[in-house]
C-alpha cells in the first residue's frame, strides 16, 4: 500500500509548537476575531491568535503564524499511542524543514478545541 500524501500544506506556528493542515482543508485565511478558537488550547497554553484558518463550512482555528508549503509530502502514520490525540483529528505527521509537523483535519481539530471549553477561545 502506498503511503498517504498531501499536496499543499499550511505549516503553522502555535507558541513553541508546530501544526500542519492540508491546504485543501482551508477555504480562507482571515484576521482574528473573538469567536475563533486558538490552537494553543491543544498545548495547554494561553490563547493567542494572529491568523485564522477557515474551512468551507465555517470552522475556524487561530494560529500564531504560518508558512505555505506547495510540495507533495508523505504522511507518516501516527502511532496507536497518539492516534486518538486531539479528538481523533490527527491524520499523521509530515516531515519537512527537518522536523515533524502534526497534520490535523481542520474541522475536527476545531471541534476538539471547542470541546476543551473556554481555555482556547478568543483572539
Amino acid at each position, binding site marked *: 500500500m502506498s503511503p498517504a500524501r498531501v499536496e499543499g500544506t499550511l505549516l503553522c506556528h502555535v507558541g513553541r509548537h508546530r501544526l500542519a493542515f492540508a491546504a485543501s482543508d482551508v477555504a480562507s485565511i482571515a484576521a482574528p476575531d473573538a469567536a475563533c478558537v486558538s490552537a494553543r488550547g491543544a498545548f495547554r497554553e494561553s490563547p493567542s491568535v494572529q491568523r485564522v484558518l477557515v474551512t468551507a463550512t465555517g470552522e475556524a482555528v487561530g494560529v500564531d503564524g504560518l508558512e505555505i508549503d506547495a510540495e507533495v509530502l508523505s504522511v*507518516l502514520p501516527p502511532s496507536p499511542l*497518539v492516534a486518538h490525540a486531539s479528538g481523533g483529528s490527527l491524520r499523521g*505527521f509530515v516531515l519537512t524543514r527537518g522536523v*515533524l509537523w*502534526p497534520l490535523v483535519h481542520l474541522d475536527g481539530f476545531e471541534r*476538539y478545541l471547542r470541546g476543551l471549553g473556554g481555555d482556547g477561545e478568543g483572539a
Partner: protein
Amino acid sequence: MAALESESRQSYLVFACGSSWYAVPAEAAAEVVTFPELTRVPGSPPHLLGVFAHRGEVIPVVDMSLLVGGVTAGSRRAVLVRLPRGTLALTASSVAGVSPVQGPLEPLGPTGVHVHLRGPGKSGSRDVAVIDPEGLFDHLSQGA
C-alpha cells in the same frame, strides 16, 4: 513457584527514569537512542513528551516518571521498546545494562499504569519495577 523461576531466568534491560529503576524484557528493548528535538502532539497528555522520526517511523516518547505521577526526568536518552503494534521510547536517565530480575513480580497496583508495572523486583542491589510492555502499550493507546 514455577512462574517465579521462569521470571528469574529472563533477561531484562534495566534503566533509571528519575529516581526510580525500571526493567523491560530484553527481547523487547531494541536499542538506546539519544533523541532529537521532539514534536509535541496536540492534545496529548504531559507524560507523552512528543514524537521523533527514526528510520522512517514516528516514535512517541514517554516519560515514565511523569506517567507514575513524579517529575520529569529531563533526559534526552530513551530505550526503544519494539512491539508488534509499534515502537515506543521510554526516557532513561541512566542505563544499567541487561540482567535478570528476582522477585514475585506482582502488579504494583490495582488500577492505571501500576497494573502494568510488576514488583517488587531486585536487579543486583537495585529495586526495580518490571514493565509489561504490551500492557503498557495498551494502556497508553487508550489515551492514558
